């Protein structure tokens, strides 16, 4: 029908024009203008009533125009917002505002989600998630709809045009209103050729246009039907693909951030400084100035000064303050407002532990009023006294007690306090003991006459300043160490670990099927890993490839963490931080010029003092300074030993495969077989418990000691002649065989490296394995064990702590592979599921397009 109408219109427009036009209004050339309004003249003046020529055109942007287009579109959006706000926007502008709302809402949502995420990566992924979603919304119609359609039919169904008002719209947006006039005949005919429309047909342009419209409508429908499936899947896939790159980028950023902290150490310290300690001390001074310094006050001061440090620091500070705030020489005491009450309570408490009646105790204990009266008497009011002078006071208090006893006896003649039994008990309990411990005198002892005077305040303020500075500096150091080396997600070391670990699976050529089979249990991985390593070790070329790839990957530590040992600038910063603080504490200059020494604190920071080489120096082993360094050292150790241990295991497998183990040369064949079997197992499954129990293995208690021949090796595996072959004898663990332990340790950690291994290490500049082997041999192999006597490699003098042993051992290879295997399996399955959905969808979408745009040619136009 449309064809008929359009062909009619076409014919109508193209029909030969009559020579003379008949018009409703007669147009005459008016030479003389008539007065007032002359309709004929106005009509004759055709320019006057002609509409303006159309400004619309198809949008044909090149990629180079993109920045300009973006700016122009953004300006258009802003104008749309302004017009919308002022109520002047048109429909097109309002549509643009909807897109803007989507972006604003999306950004604010991603921003919100980012704030509740912990790590930089999870924060970043929120925005990447949004961006990938928005991108998928526009990529899918391009990749799956627009481009294929253009390839198949030569029609750009996403063609845009700009109308006379500068509004950019989709050409095929409304199939009932397509501004065909924007395409020239030449362009349409070209598309028609591409569409295979016969050249000689009537109304060719109409037919082509119809076909183009049909293709556009079909494709737009297809878009709507597929977008819902495609967008989330594509978005998820984009996120998944982009994650490693995000990781790498963020890691670099984080490492730079950490390096900046140390490179601008003084600036970072200033930024990190908090006046919390100083403020707390100041308010404490305000509250307690010129009061007698009690133990509690000194404790509170110490706690505030060492806020953010360990408990031992608080103790050291307390000790120093006690010494510094209470003047040297004869200690003096004073009475405080709470002394009377404390003495009364202490006395009662002490008496309660005696076999006296409660009634008796209440009667004899010195009452607070009695004590207050005494304290306010002329002899004691407002006075400080030495220990000796305090004795008078204590005597006077005893007098009160005696008086109380007499009064009690007077009112209780039936059951009086006897001079022989009860009286000595009472008096002894109350006064007759050490000054610092007796219930009454200890109250006095705690209220030293030393007051929180101006000098004491200066001492505390001085310490507060040093501690504030120290706190800021250690905060910077901690932050640096955390970003780079902490055992937390997305720190430098963690990123390195993940990167190397993931690559190991590829280097070892684990297939998805193998991963799938072994993912449920580590034990399954142990067997598989052993198989793999045997296979690799049996082939020289493959062994070289694997070892080289491993070494190269392990070497990336320098790139990932930007350091492959504990960084020297970190050590320098730690040293200078603690040394400065320690020195300052030793010679703290007060405002009044006096110099005081916080000896304990200084020793806590940089180690106890000892005479070293004739000089008094700090012995750094037990100090905060050492602690600050050892955190990083231990983290390095744990990770490096995991990978170095794996290299060592590889080397051992190669040695077995080439049958070149020197340590076992002179052993009987059966022992050789047992030890190799055990070492092979230990090389992939080495846990602390194996070393602690000094290797448990079921062996032949009566091995054949005469056969000294070599073991037979095939494809990296030992063909056992004895091991497991003797069915007559039950195998047992032989706990007394210390030689077995020693030999296993020697075979694994002392046996010279295989020449090929050495060559690879040399080529790739791997240096740590030797030291690692020595350390394990010595620190783990040489510990005494109470149960299996004499099971140590040398003299049993290893003093390694369990933490050191744990770090030295690192993660067992089978554990390592098992964990990565699980992760790989999960991400693989995930990608497979969504990749398949995406792939099938794309396939169906592409295929569908081959059926689009099919139209019958009008009868009379068909050729032949």
């Amino acid at each position, binding site marked *: 029908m449309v064809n008929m109408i359009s062909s009619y219109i076409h014919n109508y427009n193209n029909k030969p024009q009559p020579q003379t036009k008949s018009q409703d209004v007669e147009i005459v050339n008016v030479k003389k203008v008539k007065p007032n309004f002359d309709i004929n003249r106005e009509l004759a003046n055709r320019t006057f009533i002609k509409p303006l020529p159309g400004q619309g055109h198809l949008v044909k942007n090149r990629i180079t125009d993109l920045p300009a287009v973006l700016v122009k579109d953004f300006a258009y959006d802003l104008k749309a917002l302004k017009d919308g706000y002022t109520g002047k926007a048109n429909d097109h502008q309002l549509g643009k505002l909807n897109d803007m709302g989507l972006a*604003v809402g999306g950004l*604010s*949502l991603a921003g919100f989600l980012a704030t509740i995420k912990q790590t930089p990566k999870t924060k970043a992924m929120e925005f990447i998630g949004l961006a990938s979603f928005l991108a998928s919304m526009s990529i899918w119609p391009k990749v799956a709809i627009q481009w294929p359609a253009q390839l198949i039919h030569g029609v750009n169904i996403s063609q845009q045009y700009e109308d006379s008002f500068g509004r950019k719209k989709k050409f095929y947006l409304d199939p009932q209103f397509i501004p065909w006039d924007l395409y020239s005949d030449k362009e349409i005919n070209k598309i028609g050729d591409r569409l295979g429309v016969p050249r000689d047909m009537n109304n060719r342009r109409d037919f082509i246009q119809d076909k183009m419209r049909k293709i556009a409508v*079909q494709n*737009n*429908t297809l878009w*709507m039907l597929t977008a*819902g499936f495609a967008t989330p899947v594509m978005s998820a896939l984009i996120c998944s693909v982009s994650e490693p790159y995000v990781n790498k980028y963020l890691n670099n950023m984080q490492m730079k951030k950490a390096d900046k902290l140390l490179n601008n150490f003084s600036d970072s310290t200033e930024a990190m400084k908090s006046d919390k300690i100083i403020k707390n001390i100041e308010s404490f001074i305000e509250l307690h100035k010129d009061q007698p310094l009690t133990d509690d006050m000194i404790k509170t001061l110490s706690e505030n000064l060492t806020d953010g440090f360990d408990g031992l620091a608080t103790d050291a500070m307390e000790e120093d303050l006690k010494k510094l705030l209470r003047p040297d020489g004869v200690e003096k005491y004073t009475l405080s407002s709470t002394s009377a009450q404390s003495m009364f309570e202490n006395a009662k408490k002490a008496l309660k532990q005696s076999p006296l009646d409660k009634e008796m105790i209440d009667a004899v204990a010195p009452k607070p009023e009695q004590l207050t009266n005494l304290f306010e008497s002329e002899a004691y009011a407002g006075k400080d006294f030495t220990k000796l002078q305090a004795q008078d006071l204590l005597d006077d208090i005893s007098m009160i007690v005696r008086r109380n006893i007499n009064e009690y006896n007077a009112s209780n003649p039936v059951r009086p306090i006897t001079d022989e039994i009860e009286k000595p008990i009472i008096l002894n309990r109350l006064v007759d003991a050490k000054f610092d411990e007796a219930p009454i005198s200890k109250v006095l002892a705690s209220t030293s006459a030393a007051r929180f005077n101006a000098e004491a305040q200066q001492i505390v303020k001085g310490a507060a300043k040093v501690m504030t500075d120290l706190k800021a500096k250690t905060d910077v150091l901690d932050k640096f160490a955390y970003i780079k080396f902490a055992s937390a997600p997305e720190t430098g070391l963690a990123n390195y670990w993940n990167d190397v670990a993931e690559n190991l699976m590829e280097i070892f050529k684990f297939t998805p099927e193998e991963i799938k089979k072994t993912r449920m249990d580590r034990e399954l991985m142990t067997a598989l890993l052993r198989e793999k390593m045997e296979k690799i070790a049996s082939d020289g070329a493959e062994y070289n490839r694997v070892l080289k790839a491993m070494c190269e990957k392990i070497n990336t530590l320098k790139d990932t963490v930007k350091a492959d040992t504990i960084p020297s600038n970190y050590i320098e910063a730690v040293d200078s931080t603690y040394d400065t603080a320690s020195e300052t504490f030793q010679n703290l200059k007060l405002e009044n010029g006096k110099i005081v020494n916080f000896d304990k604190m200084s020793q806590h920071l940089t180690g106890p003092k000892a005479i070293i080489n004739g000089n008094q120096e700090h012995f750094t082993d037990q100090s905060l300074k050492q602690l600050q360094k050892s955190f990083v050292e231990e983290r390095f150790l744990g990770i490096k030993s995991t990978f170095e241990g794996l290299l060592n295991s590889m080397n051992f497998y190669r040695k077995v495969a080439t049958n070149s183990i020197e340590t076992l040369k002179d052993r009987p064949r059966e022992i050789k077989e047992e030890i190799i079997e055990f070492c092979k197992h230990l090389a992939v499954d080495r846990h602390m418990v194996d070393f602690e129990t000094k290797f448990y293995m079921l062996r032949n208690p009566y091995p054949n000691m005469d056969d000294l021949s070599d073991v037979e090796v095939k494809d990296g595996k030992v063909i056992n002649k004895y091991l497991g072959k003797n069915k007559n004898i039950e195998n047992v663990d032989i706990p007394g065989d210390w030689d077995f332990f020693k030999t296993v340790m020697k075979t694994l950690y002392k046996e010279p490296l295989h020449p090929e291994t050495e060559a690879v290490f040399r080529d790739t500049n791997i240096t740590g394995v030797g030291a690692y082997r020595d350390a394990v041999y010595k620190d783990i192999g040489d510990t005494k064990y109470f149960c299996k006597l004499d099971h140590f490699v040398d003299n049993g003098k290893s003093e390694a702590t369990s933490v050191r042993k744990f770090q030295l051992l690192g993660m067992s290879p089978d554990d390592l592979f098992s964990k990565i295997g699980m992760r790989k399996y*999960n991400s693989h399955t995930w990608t497979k599921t969504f990749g398949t959905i995406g792939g099938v969808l794309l396939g169906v979408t592409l295929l569908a397009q081959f059926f689009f745009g099919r139209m019958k040619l009008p009868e009379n136009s068909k050729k032949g």
Partner: protein
Amino acid sequence: MILPITNRHNSLNFSANNQKDDQSEENKLPYTHDTVLKNTFSNRMRIGVDKLTNALTVYPAKGLNGSKNANFYEFLTMGMVPYLVGSAMLIAVFNSNKTFMPFDKKNASSLGRRLGLGVVFYALAKSASKMLITQPVKWMTGVDTEQPYAKVQYELPENINDTDITSIEYHKVPESSEFIRWDLMYGPEDNAKTRNEPYDKIAKKLGLGTNLNDSDQEAKPRIREIVIKSATAKNIVSYLWAATAVGIAIQECWDKFFEVGTWKFWHGKQFAKTVTTFVKTLGESIKDFYKGGKNGMSRYAGKTLLGAAVLGTVIGVANTMTSSHKPSKLDSADIIEKSRKYVVN
């Protein structure tokens, strides 16, 4: 062939003729001409269901055939499909954690379920929040920017046997700010008074005065302004509310709800419990969302997002209510000189 719409009362129907005798009741078209519908909940639901049904059946069929009658309305309506499918797909993607190890699975499923809820909340909040703009505007101005009407669309026959050439589309009266269906806003044509009655009401609410000679002409520019301004506000604010709703949905307290919740509505008691728990958890999650975390930005994130949504809504409504079109101070009657003769075309 296509008849002007004014001929609608003539019985020149091509098909689906509701006046034909042989047509049964069910086959009758619900509308014979463009008809304003009451903006009630049931009508909105009916329209929604109708549109969705078409979006899933008739329109894709027409579109995939490349029908010459396919139009922009159908394309837009089909836009519901990716919305719904995409939401379901997103929920599926968030919750595809079957292959994860137990620990990861637990965490992933907790987050996945909350994000899934977030998808639902997003859609609900996005459409419901529009009422926060349209309702106050309707109360204060009398202009219903969501007023639906049924449009009778006359199509070209697909082939020689095609007699069903009408289709019903559901539009909104002020859907296009440039081409508002003013004609549908007039009252009954009985006389001048009833004809202008709806405009009289709006003019009165807008403070343009009462008893105006041409209330429609006075009110139209203001109505257009209200339509544009409220649409601007709706387009931006609804996304902020949607974001807020997702923020509420991902609060951790929903985990507890998912532990006990059930979809099995036939387990009456259990389902009732689910509903009450849902309401309770919703309250709790809003509180948590507002309070935020303990440290840094997260303390302010919820407040900021909610604040932006509320502020946007308030500004949007306030802006819609203020106008640059001031009512003319002179009565229109005063401008026209009564002594002169006028010709009205």
